[in-house]
Protein backbone atom coordinates (compact mmCIF):
# COMPACT_ATOMS: atom_id res chain seq x y z
CA UNK A 1 0.00 0.00 0.00
CA UNK A 2 1.48 3.35 -0.97
CA UNK A 3 1.11 6.33 1.31
CA UNK A 4 -1.93 8.33 0.18
CA UNK A 5 -1.50 12.07 -0.08
CA UNK A 6 -4.92 12.89 1.37
CA UNK A 7 -8.55 11.86 1.49
CA UNK A 8 -11.03 13.36 -1.00
CA UNK A 9 -14.79 13.03 -0.64
CA UNK A 10 -16.50 12.97 -4.05
CA UNK A 11 -20.15 14.09 -3.92
CA UNK A 12 -22.05 13.44 -7.17
CA UNK A 13 -25.50 12.00 -7.84
CA UNK A 14 -24.77 10.79 -11.38
CA UNK A 15 -23.15 7.39 -10.96
CA UNK A 16 -20.97 7.39 -14.10
CA UNK A 17 -19.54 10.83 -13.33
CA UNK A 18 -18.95 9.73 -9.71
CA UNK A 19 -17.15 6.54 -10.82
CA UNK A 20 -14.97 8.58 -13.16
CA UNK A 21 -14.22 11.17 -10.48
CA UNK A 22 -13.33 8.53 -7.87
CA UNK A 23 -10.96 6.90 -10.35
CA UNK A 24 -9.49 10.28 -11.26
CA UNK A 25 -8.80 11.09 -7.59
CA UNK A 26 -7.26 7.67 -6.96
CA UNK A 27 -5.09 7.77 -10.08
CA UNK A 28 -3.73 11.09 -8.86
CA UNK A 29 -2.58 9.33 -5.67
CA UNK A 30 -5.31 10.32 -3.25
CA UNK A 31 -7.79 8.23 -1.34
CA UNK A 32 -11.36 8.68 -2.56
CA UNK A 33 -14.56 8.34 -0.57
CA UNK A 34 -17.90 8.74 -2.35
CA UNK A 35 -21.33 10.12 -1.53
CA UNK A 36 -24.37 10.34 -3.80
CA UNK A 37 -25.83 13.46 -2.19
CA UNK A 38 -25.25 16.12 0.46
CA UNK A 39 -26.93 14.15 3.25
CA UNK A 40 -24.65 11.18 2.73
CA UNK A 41 -21.66 13.51 2.51
CA UNK A 42 -22.50 15.05 5.88
CA UNK A 43 -22.91 11.62 7.49
CA UNK A 44 -19.46 10.66 6.21
CA UNK A 45 -17.89 13.92 7.42
CA UNK A 46 -19.46 13.35 10.85
CA UNK A 47 -18.19 9.76 10.97
CA UNK A 48 -14.58 10.30 9.91
CA UNK A 49 -12.13 13.07 10.59
CA UNK A 50 -9.59 12.38 7.84
CA UNK A 51 -11.46 14.02 4.90
CA UNK A 52 -9.22 16.83 3.71
CA UNK A 53 -11.14 17.93 0.62
CA UNK A 54 -14.67 17.74 -0.76
CA UNK A 55 -15.18 17.69 -4.53
CA UNK A 56 -18.88 18.28 -5.11
CA UNK A 57 -21.44 18.63 -7.88
CA UNK A 58 -24.03 21.44 -7.49
CA UNK A 59 -27.35 20.15 -8.80
CA UNK A 60 -28.26 17.16 -6.63
CA UNK A 61 -31.46 15.81 -5.11
CA UNK A 62 -31.87 15.87 -1.33
CA UNK A 63 -32.12 18.55 1.31
CA UNK A 64 -29.08 20.52 0.10
CA UNK A 65 -27.52 21.21 -3.26
CA UNK A 66 -23.76 21.40 -3.66
CA UNK A 67 -23.64 25.16 -3.00
CA UNK A 68 -25.50 24.84 0.30
CA UNK A 69 -23.37 21.83 1.15
CA UNK A 70 -20.14 23.72 0.51
CA UNK A 71 -21.28 26.63 2.69
CA UNK A 72 -22.37 24.21 5.41
CA UNK A 73 -19.00 22.44 5.33
CA UNK A 74 -17.10 25.74 5.48
CA UNK A 75 -19.14 26.64 8.58
CA UNK A 76 -18.92 23.31 10.38
CA UNK A 77 -15.57 21.93 9.21
CA UNK A 78 -13.57 25.04 8.29
CA UNK A 79 -10.28 23.28 7.40
CA UNK A 80 -11.89 21.08 4.72
CA UNK A 81 -10.98 22.37 1.22
CA UNK A 82 -13.69 22.67 -1.39
CA UNK A 83 -13.93 22.14 -5.15
CA UNK A 84 -17.30 22.71 -6.81
CA UNK A 85 -18.22 21.63 -10.36
CA UNK A 86 -21.44 22.33 -12.21
CA UNK A 87 -23.03 22.27 -15.62
CA UNK A 88 -24.44 25.70 -14.86
CA UNK A 89 -22.13 27.86 -16.94
CA UNK A 90 -22.72 31.08 -15.09
CA UNK A 91 -21.97 30.73 -11.44
CA UNK A 92 -21.04 33.72 -9.39
CA UNK A 93 -17.92 33.22 -7.31
CA UNK A 94 -19.69 35.12 -4.51
CA UNK A 95 -22.11 32.20 -4.11
CA UNK A 96 -19.19 30.02 -3.07
CA UNK A 97 -17.51 29.99 0.33
CA UNK A 98 -14.13 31.67 0.51
CA UNK A 99 -11.29 29.57 -0.82
CA UNK A 100 -13.56 27.22 -2.75
CA UNK A 101 -12.74 26.69 -6.42
CA UNK A 102 -15.29 26.36 -9.19
CA UNK A 103 -15.00 24.39 -12.44
CA UNK A 104 -17.67 24.32 -15.15
CA UNK A 105 -18.70 20.90 -16.43
CA UNK A 106 -17.44 19.10 -18.38
CA UNK A 107 -14.23 19.76 -16.46
CA UNK A 108 -10.69 19.24 -17.69
CA UNK A 109 -9.56 16.36 -15.49
CA UNK A 110 -5.97 17.55 -15.32
CA UNK A 111 -7.18 20.92 -13.95
CA UNK A 112 -9.10 19.15 -11.17
CA UNK A 113 -6.02 17.08 -10.28
CA UNK A 114 -3.88 20.23 -10.18
CA UNK A 115 -6.44 22.00 -8.01
CA UNK A 116 -6.54 19.04 -5.57
CA UNK A 117 -2.73 18.88 -5.43
CA UNK A 118 -2.51 22.65 -4.94
CA UNK A 119 -5.02 22.58 -2.08
CA UNK A 120 -3.22 19.74 -0.29
CA UNK A 121 0.13 21.48 -0.60
CA UNK A 122 0.61 23.54 2.54
Amino acid at each position, binding site marked *: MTERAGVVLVVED*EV*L*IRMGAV*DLVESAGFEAVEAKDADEAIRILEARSDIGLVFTDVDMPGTMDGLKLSRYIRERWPPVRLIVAS*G*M*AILDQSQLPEGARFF*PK*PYVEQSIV*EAIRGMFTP
Partner: protein
Amino acid sequence: MPHSTPDHVEAASTLAVIASSNEPLLFLDSDLRVIAASRSFCRTFQMQPETLPGTRISDLGNGEWAVPQLTSLLRATASGAAEIEAYELELTCEGHETRHLVLNAHKLDDGDADHIRLLLAISDVTLARSEARQKDDLVRQKAILLQEVQHRVANSLQIIASVLMHSARKVQSEEARGHLQSAHHRVMSIAAVQRQLAASELGQVVLAPYLVQLCDSLGASMIRDPRRLSIAVEVDDSLVDAKESLSLGLIVTELVINALKHAFPGHRKGRIVVGYRSEGPDWMLSVSDNGIGIPDGVDAPKPGLGTGIVDALAGQLNAKIRIVDTQPGTAICVESGCSSEIGRPVSVPA
Protein backbone atom coordinates in the same frame (compact mmCIF):
# COMPACT_ATOMS: atom_id res chain seq x y z
CA MET B 1 -83.49 68.56 -16.37
CA PRO B 2 -81.36 65.83 -14.84
CA HIS B 3 -78.11 66.90 -16.59
CA SER B 4 -77.54 70.08 -14.71
CA THR B 5 -76.17 71.60 -11.56
CA PRO B 6 -78.55 73.80 -9.61
CA ASP B 7 -77.30 77.07 -11.03
CA HIS B 8 -76.11 76.12 -14.49
CA VAL B 9 -77.42 74.15 -17.46
CA GLU B 10 -74.98 72.55 -19.87
CA ALA B 11 -75.53 72.65 -23.60
CA ALA B 12 -77.17 69.46 -24.88
CA SER B 13 -74.41 69.08 -27.46
CA THR B 14 -71.71 69.08 -24.75
CA LEU B 15 -73.56 66.36 -22.86
CA ALA B 16 -74.03 64.35 -26.05
CA VAL B 17 -70.31 64.52 -26.84
CA ILE B 18 -69.42 63.37 -23.33
CA ALA B 19 -71.95 60.53 -23.45
CA SER B 20 -70.65 59.18 -26.71
CA SER B 21 -66.92 59.19 -25.79
CA ASN B 22 -65.25 55.89 -26.39
CA GLU B 23 -62.81 56.46 -23.55
CA PRO B 24 -64.52 56.48 -20.15
CA LEU B 25 -65.11 60.14 -19.24
CA LEU B 26 -66.53 62.00 -16.29
CA PHE B 27 -67.61 65.61 -16.58
CA LEU B 28 -67.42 67.18 -13.10
CA ASP B 29 -68.30 70.50 -11.52
CA SER B 30 -66.05 72.41 -9.11
CA ASP B 31 -67.60 70.52 -6.21
CA LEU B 32 -66.54 67.25 -7.89
CA ARG B 33 -70.13 66.26 -8.58
CA VAL B 34 -70.86 64.41 -11.80
CA ILE B 35 -72.53 66.53 -14.47
CA ALA B 36 -72.37 63.79 -17.06
CA ALA B 37 -70.65 60.47 -17.68
CA SER B 38 -69.89 58.68 -20.88
CA ARG B 39 -71.73 55.46 -21.66
CA SER B 40 -68.32 53.78 -21.81
CA PHE B 41 -67.70 54.82 -18.17
CA CYS B 42 -71.02 53.33 -17.05
CA ARG B 43 -70.28 50.14 -18.99
CA THR B 44 -66.71 49.79 -17.72
CA PHE B 45 -67.58 50.43 -14.08
CA GLN B 46 -71.07 48.91 -14.17
CA MET B 47 -73.09 51.95 -13.10
CA GLN B 48 -76.56 53.10 -14.12
CA PRO B 49 -76.23 56.32 -16.20
CA GLU B 50 -79.32 57.93 -14.63
CA THR B 51 -77.95 57.59 -11.07
CA LEU B 52 -74.77 59.53 -11.76
CA PRO B 53 -75.60 63.22 -12.32
CA GLY B 54 -75.33 65.18 -9.10
CA THR B 55 -73.41 62.44 -7.31
CA ARG B 56 -70.04 63.34 -5.80
CA ILE B 57 -67.16 61.32 -7.22
CA SER B 58 -66.37 60.01 -3.75
CA ASP B 59 -69.89 58.58 -3.48
CA LEU B 60 -69.79 56.69 -6.78
CA GLY B 61 -70.35 52.94 -6.68
CA ASN B 62 -69.66 51.59 -3.20
CA GLY B 63 -67.33 54.43 -2.30
CA GLU B 64 -64.30 52.92 -4.04
CA TRP B 65 -63.66 56.27 -5.75
CA ALA B 66 -63.24 57.98 -2.39
CA VAL B 67 -59.48 58.19 -2.68
CA PRO B 68 -58.19 61.21 -0.72
CA GLN B 69 -55.24 61.77 -3.03
CA LEU B 70 -57.50 61.74 -6.12
CA THR B 71 -59.91 64.17 -4.49
CA SER B 72 -57.15 66.62 -3.61
CA LEU B 73 -55.62 66.32 -7.09
CA LEU B 74 -59.02 67.05 -8.67
CA ARG B 75 -59.47 70.06 -6.37
CA ALA B 76 -56.03 71.34 -7.33
CA THR B 77 -56.96 70.90 -11.00
CA ALA B 78 -60.23 72.79 -10.45
CA SER B 79 -58.36 75.67 -8.82
CA GLY B 80 -55.97 75.79 -11.78
CA ALA B 81 -52.97 74.87 -9.59
CA ALA B 82 -52.34 71.53 -11.28
CA GLU B 83 -53.37 69.16 -13.98
CA ILE B 84 -53.63 65.43 -13.60
CA GLU B 85 -51.56 63.64 -16.14
CA ALA B 86 -51.27 59.88 -16.26
CA TYR B 87 -52.08 59.49 -12.59
CA GLU B 88 -52.16 55.81 -11.72
CA LEU B 89 -54.89 54.55 -9.47
CA GLU B 90 -55.61 51.07 -8.21
CA LEU B 91 -59.35 50.79 -7.83
CA THR B 92 -60.42 48.14 -5.36
CA CYS B 93 -64.02 47.17 -5.54
CA GLU B 94 -65.47 44.55 -3.23
CA GLY B 95 -66.06 41.29 -5.03
CA HIS B 96 -63.96 42.37 -8.04
CA GLU B 97 -60.30 42.13 -8.74
CA THR B 98 -58.26 45.31 -8.41
CA ARG B 99 -58.28 47.45 -11.55
CA HIS B 100 -55.34 49.48 -12.77
CA LEU B 101 -56.49 52.88 -13.98
CA VAL B 102 -54.65 55.73 -15.62
CA LEU B 103 -56.31 59.11 -15.07
CA ASN B 104 -56.03 62.41 -16.90
CA ALA B 105 -57.97 65.49 -15.83
CA HIS B 106 -58.16 69.00 -17.26
CA LYS B 107 -60.09 72.09 -16.39
CA LEU B 108 -62.48 72.85 -19.23
CA ASP B 109 -61.40 75.99 -21.02
CA ASP B 110 -64.56 77.35 -22.69
CA GLY B 111 -64.28 80.95 -21.59
CA ASP B 112 -66.91 80.54 -18.88
CA ALA B 113 -64.90 81.61 -15.81
CA ASP B 114 -67.92 81.48 -13.47
CA HIS B 115 -68.53 77.80 -13.93
CA ILE B 116 -65.54 75.60 -13.35
CA ARG B 117 -65.89 72.16 -14.88
CA LEU B 118 -63.43 69.28 -15.11
CA LEU B 119 -63.04 66.59 -17.70
CA LEU B 120 -61.71 63.38 -16.16
CA ALA B 121 -60.62 60.61 -18.55
CA ILE B 122 -60.17 57.14 -17.12
CA SER B 123 -58.29 54.41 -18.98
CA ASP B 124 -58.56 50.89 -17.66
CA VAL B 125 -55.15 49.33 -18.27
CA THR B 126 -55.74 46.22 -16.16
CA LEU B 127 -55.74 43.91 -19.18
CA ALA B 128 -52.76 45.56 -20.87
CA ARG B 129 -50.78 45.42 -17.64
CA SER B 130 -51.58 41.78 -17.04
CA GLU B 131 -50.69 40.93 -20.64
CA ALA B 132 -47.38 42.75 -20.25
CA ARG B 133 -46.76 40.85 -17.02
CA GLN B 134 -47.60 37.54 -18.70
CA LYS B 135 -45.20 38.37 -21.49
CA ASP B 136 -42.45 39.15 -18.97
CA ASP B 137 -43.19 35.87 -17.20
CA LEU B 138 -42.96 33.97 -20.49
CA VAL B 139 -39.65 35.59 -21.36
CA ARG B 140 -38.35 34.72 -17.90
CA GLN B 141 -39.63 31.14 -18.16
CA LYS B 142 -37.98 30.77 -21.55
CA ALA B 143 -34.65 31.96 -20.16
CA ILE B 144 -34.92 29.52 -17.24
CA LEU B 145 -35.83 26.69 -19.61
CA LEU B 146 -32.90 27.48 -21.87
CA GLN B 147 -30.56 27.52 -18.88
CA GLU B 148 -31.97 24.18 -17.78
CA VAL B 149 -31.36 22.69 -21.23
CA GLN B 150 -27.79 24.02 -21.31
CA HIS B 151 -27.25 22.60 -17.85
CA ARG B 152 -28.47 19.18 -19.00
CA VAL B 153 -26.30 19.28 -22.11
CA ALA B 154 -23.24 20.11 -19.98
CA ASN B 155 -24.08 17.29 -17.60
CA SER B 156 -24.53 14.79 -20.44
CA LEU B 157 -21.21 15.84 -21.95
CA GLN B 158 -19.63 15.38 -18.51
CA ILE B 159 -20.95 11.80 -18.37
CA ILE B 160 -19.44 11.05 -21.80
CA ALA B 161 -16.16 12.78 -20.88
CA SER B 162 -15.95 10.91 -17.54
CA VAL B 163 -16.57 7.52 -19.15
CA LEU B 164 -14.01 8.15 -21.91
CA MET B 165 -11.28 9.27 -19.49
CA HIS B 166 -12.11 6.48 -17.07
CA SER B 167 -11.66 3.98 -19.91
CA ALA B 168 -8.45 5.71 -21.03
CA ARG B 169 -6.96 5.23 -17.55
CA LYS B 170 -8.05 1.59 -17.33
CA VAL B 171 -7.10 0.36 -20.79
CA GLN B 172 -3.75 -1.47 -21.18
CA SER B 173 -2.89 -0.64 -24.78
CA GLU B 174 -1.06 2.62 -25.31
CA GLU B 175 -2.67 2.98 -28.76
CA ALA B 176 -6.21 2.47 -27.44
CA ARG B 177 -5.50 5.00 -24.70
CA GLY B 178 -4.49 7.54 -27.33
CA HIS B 179 -7.73 6.98 -29.25
CA LEU B 180 -9.84 7.33 -26.13
CA GLN B 181 -8.04 10.55 -25.17
CA SER B 182 -8.58 11.94 -28.67
CA ALA B 183 -12.27 11.08 -28.44
CA HIS B 184 -12.31 12.90 -25.10
CA HIS B 185 -10.72 16.00 -26.67
CA ARG B 186 -13.40 16.02 -29.38
CA VAL B 187 -16.11 15.93 -26.72
CA MET B 188 -14.40 18.75 -24.80
CA SER B 189 -14.20 20.77 -28.01
CA ILE B 190 -17.95 20.46 -28.50
CA ALA B 191 -18.48 21.33 -24.83
CA ALA B 192 -16.47 24.53 -25.27
CA VAL B 193 -18.84 25.65 -28.08
CA GLN B 194 -21.83 24.85 -25.88
CA ARG B 195 -20.38 27.03 -23.13
CA GLN B 196 -19.85 29.94 -25.52
CA LEU B 197 -23.39 29.51 -26.87
CA ALA B 198 -24.80 29.56 -23.34
CA ALA B 199 -23.16 32.94 -22.86
CA SER B 200 -24.39 34.39 -26.18
CA GLU B 201 -28.01 34.89 -27.10
CA LEU B 202 -28.01 35.05 -30.87
CA GLY B 203 -26.69 31.58 -31.66
CA GLN B 204 -23.39 33.15 -32.68
CA VAL B 205 -20.01 32.59 -31.15
CA VAL B 206 -17.17 35.06 -30.76
CA LEU B 207 -14.35 32.93 -32.08
CA ALA B 208 -11.41 34.32 -30.08
CA PRO B 209 -12.51 33.47 -26.51
CA TYR B 210 -13.85 30.13 -27.70
CA LEU B 211 -10.56 29.08 -29.31
CA VAL B 212 -8.60 30.40 -26.31
CA GLN B 213 -10.73 28.25 -24.00
CA LEU B 214 -10.39 25.27 -26.31
CA CYS B 215 -6.60 25.55 -26.53
CA ASP B 216 -6.33 26.08 -22.75
CA SER B 217 -8.23 22.86 -22.22
CA LEU B 218 -6.11 20.97 -24.80
CA GLY B 219 -2.94 22.36 -23.24
CA ALA B 220 -4.03 21.53 -19.70
CA SER B 221 -4.66 17.91 -20.56
CA MET B 222 -1.90 17.25 -23.12
CA ILE B 223 1.08 19.39 -22.16
CA ARG B 224 3.03 17.98 -19.22
CA ASP B 225 5.67 20.70 -19.20
CA PRO B 226 4.37 24.14 -20.17
CA ARG B 227 7.94 25.47 -20.30
CA ARG B 228 8.66 23.05 -23.14
CA LEU B 229 5.50 23.31 -25.23
CA SER B 230 2.96 26.10 -25.55
CA ILE B 231 -0.11 26.99 -27.60
CA ALA B 232 -0.89 30.58 -28.60
CA VAL B 233 -4.11 31.86 -30.14
CA GLU B 234 -3.98 34.74 -32.63
CA VAL B 235 -7.55 35.23 -33.72
CA ASP B 236 -9.28 38.40 -34.92
CA ASP B 237 -12.67 39.51 -33.58
CA SER B 238 -14.70 37.34 -35.98
CA LEU B 239 -18.19 36.23 -35.04
CA VAL B 240 -19.33 32.94 -36.57
CA ASP B 241 -22.53 30.95 -36.30
CA ALA B 242 -22.81 28.01 -33.95
CA LYS B 243 -22.52 25.24 -36.52
CA GLU B 244 -19.50 26.79 -38.22
CA SER B 245 -17.77 27.38 -34.90
CA LEU B 246 -18.31 23.74 -33.96
CA SER B 247 -16.55 22.61 -37.16
CA LEU B 248 -13.70 25.12 -36.74
CA GLY B 249 -13.21 24.03 -33.12
CA LEU B 250 -13.07 20.35 -34.06
CA ILE B 251 -10.56 21.09 -36.84
CA VAL B 252 -8.37 23.03 -34.39
CA THR B 253 -8.66 20.16 -31.89
CA GLU B 254 -7.44 17.60 -34.44
CA LEU B 255 -4.62 19.76 -35.79
CA VAL B 256 -3.36 20.78 -32.34
CA ILE B 257 -3.46 17.17 -31.06
CA ASN B 258 -1.60 16.12 -34.19
CA ALA B 259 1.09 18.76 -33.77
CA LEU B 260 1.54 17.96 -30.07
CA LYS B 261 1.86 14.26 -30.85
CA HIS B 262 4.18 14.39 -33.84
CA ALA B 263 5.94 17.73 -34.28
CA PHE B 264 8.06 17.68 -31.14
CA PRO B 265 9.62 14.25 -30.59
CA GLY B 266 11.93 13.64 -27.67
CA HIS B 267 12.26 16.69 -25.49
CA ARG B 268 12.19 19.18 -28.31
CA LYS B 269 10.87 22.60 -27.27
CA GLY B 270 8.12 24.09 -29.36
CA ARG B 271 5.24 26.40 -29.90
CA ILE B 272 1.93 26.05 -31.71
CA VAL B 273 0.00 29.04 -32.99
CA VAL B 274 -3.70 28.87 -33.85
CA GLY B 275 -4.65 31.71 -36.19
CA TYR B 276 -7.90 32.86 -37.75
CA ARG B 277 -8.78 35.94 -39.71
CA SER B 278 -11.59 36.90 -42.01
CA GLU B 279 -12.32 39.58 -44.59
CA GLY B 280 -15.91 39.70 -45.77
CA PRO B 281 -16.85 36.17 -46.83
CA ASP B 282 -13.23 34.99 -46.94
CA TRP B 283 -11.54 33.42 -43.97
CA MET B 284 -8.47 31.45 -43.09
CA LEU B 285 -7.81 29.19 -40.16
CA SER B 286 -4.26 28.04 -39.56
CA VAL B 287 -2.47 25.84 -37.09
CA SER B 288 1.28 26.36 -37.28
CA ASP B 289 4.14 24.78 -35.37
CA ASN B 290 7.90 25.10 -35.28
CA GLY B 291 8.47 21.36 -35.01
CA ILE B 292 10.30 18.84 -37.16
CA GLY B 293 8.01 19.13 -40.19
CA ILE B 294 6.08 16.34 -41.89
CA PRO B 295 8.29 13.47 -43.03
CA ASP B 296 7.82 12.39 -46.65
CA GLY B 297 8.57 9.29 -48.71
CA VAL B 298 8.44 6.03 -46.80
CA ASP B 299 8.32 7.91 -43.51
CA ALA B 300 5.15 9.80 -44.47
CA PRO B 301 2.44 9.24 -41.85
CA LYS B 302 -0.63 7.23 -42.81
CA PRO B 303 -3.73 9.34 -42.58
CA GLY B 304 -5.73 8.48 -39.46
CA LEU B 305 -9.17 9.35 -38.18
CA GLY B 306 -8.00 12.86 -37.29
CA THR B 307 -7.10 13.59 -40.92
CA GLY B 308 -10.44 12.15 -42.02
CA ILE B 309 -12.28 14.43 -39.60
CA VAL B 310 -10.39 17.54 -40.77
CA ASP B 311 -11.04 16.69 -44.45
CA ALA B 312 -14.73 16.05 -43.84
CA LEU B 313 -15.28 19.23 -41.80
CA ALA B 314 -13.31 21.37 -44.25
CA GLY B 315 -15.50 19.95 -47.03
CA GLN B 316 -18.60 20.83 -45.03
CA LEU B 317 -17.30 24.40 -44.70
CA ASN B 318 -16.52 24.51 -48.47
CA ALA B 319 -12.91 25.11 -47.52
CA LYS B 320 -9.58 24.06 -48.99
CA ILE B 321 -6.72 22.61 -47.00
CA ARG B 322 -3.19 23.75 -47.75
CA ILE B 323 -0.10 22.35 -46.08
CA VAL B 324 2.85 24.75 -45.97
CA ASP B 325 6.38 23.72 -45.10
CA THR B 326 7.44 26.73 -43.02
CA GLN B 327 10.98 25.50 -42.19
CA PRO B 328 11.06 25.07 -39.36
CA GLY B 329 7.77 23.37 -38.85
CA THR B 330 4.50 23.09 -40.65
CA ALA B 331 1.44 25.24 -41.11
CA ILE B 332 -1.89 23.72 -42.02
CA CYS B 333 -4.25 26.28 -43.51
CA VAL B 334 -7.95 25.76 -43.94
CA GLU B 335 -9.42 28.55 -46.05
CA SER B 336 -12.72 29.46 -47.60
CA GLY B 337 -13.13 28.05 -51.12
CA CYS B 338 -13.77 31.41 -52.82
CA SER B 339 -10.67 33.06 -51.40
CA SER B 340 -7.53 33.60 -53.37
CA GLU B 341 -5.38 33.37 -50.24
CA ILE B 342 -6.24 36.18 -47.90
CA GLY B 343 -2.84 35.99 -46.35
CA ARG B 344 0.00 33.87 -45.19
CA PRO B 345 -0.38 31.56 -42.24
CA VAL B 346 1.07 32.71 -38.96
CA SER B 347 4.60 31.32 -39.00
CA VAL B 348 6.25 30.36 -35.79
CA PRO B 349 9.88 31.33 -35.29
CA ALA B 350 12.24 28.52 -34.33
